[in-house]
């Protein structure tokens, strides 16, 4: 039998029940569309995270307290504060080759007040080298000076939003503000940086790390040490040097009992990439379930169609249709449904992903519209395969009908 005539015939049959054909297709449209949209949105979210992290600079090395290896669980997860990193560690790391700048971090939350204005926000204790580590600038006044690193000077540099909230248009330089009960002199204001997923530096205030440790927190350790290296390719060398240095400083002979973790930003990116990739696959698999549901819908409708057209099938057999003719006719019909549904689904999924991408971009985040050919081809092929798989049973049922019984069917 002529394939083109069969395909034409299938279109005619589908056109007769336009609304029903559309509803059947809808299962495929939603299935394919959601697979494509979710894959794309997943990739977009990944790009957002990457872009955010990359905005810190990829040539950063971080030292975290707590061993990241085998038996030691992540400290923060267990609610345990690990106190192994100190300000002196940070200073020592500064002497490692290829390191451009290094700063410890000692953070906390506090009420910051000026006059009758009170704001609860976080303070960041850093060293004077902070500006060399993170991409951040002072817009007014100055940052923490190297002399103040060793002191517990009560000076503060305000984030742009904190300055707005406490001082409005007035000049804050030289004014005294209170962080909890302690009085600080404002020496500078940071440039507006914009919020990122990781932190909003505009809402924070910067103070010398020793001040944060001794006066506000009453601790001796730091939460994190971050260092900038001259080139990303030196990261492995720097990491091993820092490890050697800190093992020696912490008096650790057995490398298994390591009490800190050194990681470069690109390593962190790789790790996040692995996690988000797994997440994407998982979400895609959930979306693929709707493809399966759509396939069952197709089988359902094709079974109804076979019953409805029993007489027609009988007639076709009487006029010389072979078993395979009837089989292919019904198979082609269900494949056409999934093919067209898949096509619309691909277009719809791309449109939806684009709307999300442009919406997020409009809000000012670095979200890329990523549609991989693989996701398009894969979901499309799966759709057609589903049409084939779920179309086979109804088509077989039609082909196996007894011609005479079918002809007499009312």
């Amino acid at each position, binding site marked *: *039998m*002529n394939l083109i*005539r069969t395909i034409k015939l299938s279109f005619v049959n589908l056109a007769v029940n336009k609304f029903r054909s559309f509803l059947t297709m809808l299962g495929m449209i939603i299935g394919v569309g959601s697979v494509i949209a979710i894959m794309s949105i997943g990739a977009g979210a990944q790009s957002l995270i990457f872009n955010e992290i990359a905005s810190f600079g990829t040539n950063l090395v971080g030292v975290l307290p707590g061993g990241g290896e085998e038996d030691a669980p992540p400290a923060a997860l267990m609610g345990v504060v690990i106190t192994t990193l100190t300000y002196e560690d940070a200073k020592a790391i500064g002497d490692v080759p290829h390191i451009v700048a290094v700063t410890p971090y000692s953070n906390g939350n506090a009420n910051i007040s000026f006059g009758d204005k009170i704001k609860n926000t976080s303070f960041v204790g850093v060293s004077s080298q902070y500006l060399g580590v993170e991409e951040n600038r002072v817009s007014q006044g100055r940052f923490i000076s190297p002399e103040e690193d060793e002191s517990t000077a009560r000076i503060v540099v305000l984030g742009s939003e904190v300055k707005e909230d406490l001082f409005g248009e007035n000049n804050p330089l030289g004014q005294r503000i209170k962080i909890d009960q302690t009085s600080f002199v404002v020496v500078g204001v940071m440039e507006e940086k914009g919020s990122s997923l990781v932190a909003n530096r505009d809402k924070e205030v910067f103070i010398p790390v020793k001040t944060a440790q001794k006066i506000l927190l009453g601790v001796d350790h730091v939460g994190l040490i971050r260092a900038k290296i001259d080139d990303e390719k030196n990261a492995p060398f720097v990491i091993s040097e820092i490890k050697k240095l800190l093992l020696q400083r912490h008096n650790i002979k057995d490398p298994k009992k390591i009490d800190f973790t050194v990681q470069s930003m690109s390593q962190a990116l790789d790790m996040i990439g692995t996690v988000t990739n797994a997440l994407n696959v998982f979400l895609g698999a959930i979306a693929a379930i709707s493809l399966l549901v759509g396939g069952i819908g197709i089988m359902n409708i094709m079974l109804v169609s076979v019953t409805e057209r029993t007489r027609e099938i009988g007639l076709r057999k*009487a006029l*010389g*249709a*072979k078993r395979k003719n009837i089989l292919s006719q019904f198979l082609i019909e269900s494949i056409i449904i999934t093919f067209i549904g898949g096509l619309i689904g691909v277009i719809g999924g791309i449109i939806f992903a684009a709307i999300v991408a442009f919406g997020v971009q409009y809000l000012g985040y670095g979200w890329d519209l990523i549609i991989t050919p693989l996701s398009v081809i894969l979901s499309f092929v799966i759709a057609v395969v589903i049409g084939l798989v779920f179309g086979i049973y109804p088509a077989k049922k039609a082909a196996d009908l007894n011609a*005479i019984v079918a002809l007499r069917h009312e």
Partner: protein
Amino acid sequence: MSKLISVKNITKDYQLGDVVTHVLKGVSFDIEDGEFVSIMGSSGSGKSTLMYVLGFLDKYTNGKYYFEGHDTSKLDDDKLAEFRNEKVGFIFQSYNLLQRTTVLDNVLLPTTYLLGCDVKKAEAEAIKLLKRVGLGHRMEHRPNQLSGGEQQRVAIVRALINNPNLILADEPTGNLDSKSGEEIMEILQDLNKEGKTIIMVTHEQYTAECARRILHIKDGIITQDEIVNNRRLATNGDFKK
């Protein structure tokens, strides 16, 4: 004339659960090329089953059926489908036209299953035949826009499109008024005159007498094989219900 059909002691049993029904209980006859035979009997006599067996739609249980010298018991399902397609044209009491396709597409339906069919040529043939039965102006209509007589004429053209030698008609005038029925019989008689072999199943004596020969069937057995001497000719206005 050569022998087209040779049926020897054919039986047909239907099994419904534990109950076996013997519909044909040993039927034998020959039909020559170019004959016009009526198979006559009351309902339940097995006449329709016999026709379906002759048209390769139904399989017989025992006996022998030779068509153009082929032993049909040795043909597989695909070959039987080819025979239905190329060697036989069916005409049904209820026309069995596809309601959602045009008259022309209905006529072309059997060509869909014809191997190596030239669509253009088949279409030209369909138009020629439709014009011949007076439906040249109805080709793009749907069957439900046609009268019963017109629908049956479409069905006849459909039966002819693959140029089979044998026309099998199952109560072709059963659903029609006498005038339309007469037109149908006229066409069948004309086709017979041109050399087509026609086997027609009916329960009406006057319709049966349009043929040249009547096989009377009762309870699955041929009771009488009668040559029609006073054949009714639809063109003479002799054909009345």
